[in-house]
């Protein structure tokens, strides 16, 4: 059971309070109907799925309730850092 640092609570807490929420920094297009099928497909389905450093989202669902971003190494399962939603990619 890993420990995760919540950037809103500023506490490092057991994974059990958190939920994974997919890859980070995939913003919903402002005008989806203006997108080609290919662009919409890219937004909807295409993910980086890297071996190694991954920008991803977590939610402190059983805590402050906030979605936030994290950089986790998918090989070692170690978190490099976490940061608030809306902050630029790190």
């Amino acid at each position, binding site marked *: *059971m890993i420990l995760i640092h919540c950037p*809103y*609570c*500023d506490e490092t*807490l*057991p994974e*059990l*309070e958190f939920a994974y929420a997919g890859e980070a920094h995939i913003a919903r297009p402002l005008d989806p109907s203006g997108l080609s099928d290919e662009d919409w497909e890219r937004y909807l389905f295409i993910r980086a799925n890297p071996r190694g450093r991954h920008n991803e989202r977590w939610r402190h669902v*059983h*805590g*402050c*309730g*906030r979605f936030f971003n994290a950089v986790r190494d998918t090989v070692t399962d170690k978190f490099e850092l976490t940061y608030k939603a809306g902050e630029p990619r790190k």
Partner: protein
Amino acid sequence: MVDAALRTAPVPADPAVYDGVTITLGTPLERRSLRARDAKALGKLLGRKLPEQIGRSSEDVLCLGPDEWLLRAPAGTAVPDGAGLPLALVDISERALTLVLEGPRAIDVLQAGCPRDLRKLTVGEGRRTVFEGVEIVLLRTGEDRFEVDVWRSFASWLHLALTTAASHLR
């Protein structure tokens, strides 16, 4: 106010007494979910100063998130509804009920299923967390006294889990 005699609760009214801890159903409370970007505006509406750090409480209000507070006041306390304002007040008085754990082993009973380090929860603080997968709001109201707000449907299960843990104390 509605006649309190008409209330029912899913856990026994009698305290469960163990060596080192007593588990009791708390009295009904006026509970509100308080949401706003601007803590000061919300505090002004309520006539209370809201704590701004997650986990801290003051004047019956616990800060649960960056824009979220929980009011736990004596039943019957009048609370405005904030209509038309850029904030949200929602009556959740009956969403949860309170289990009170009191005694020197209360912390051990809670630590049986709560993965947080409860030694770090100081008196006057509270957090939303889990007990074996069941979400709770846990408040430390004394060195040896904790209050657990749990959603009503989970309460009978949680009461059994806590009393079982208490019965296993050594």
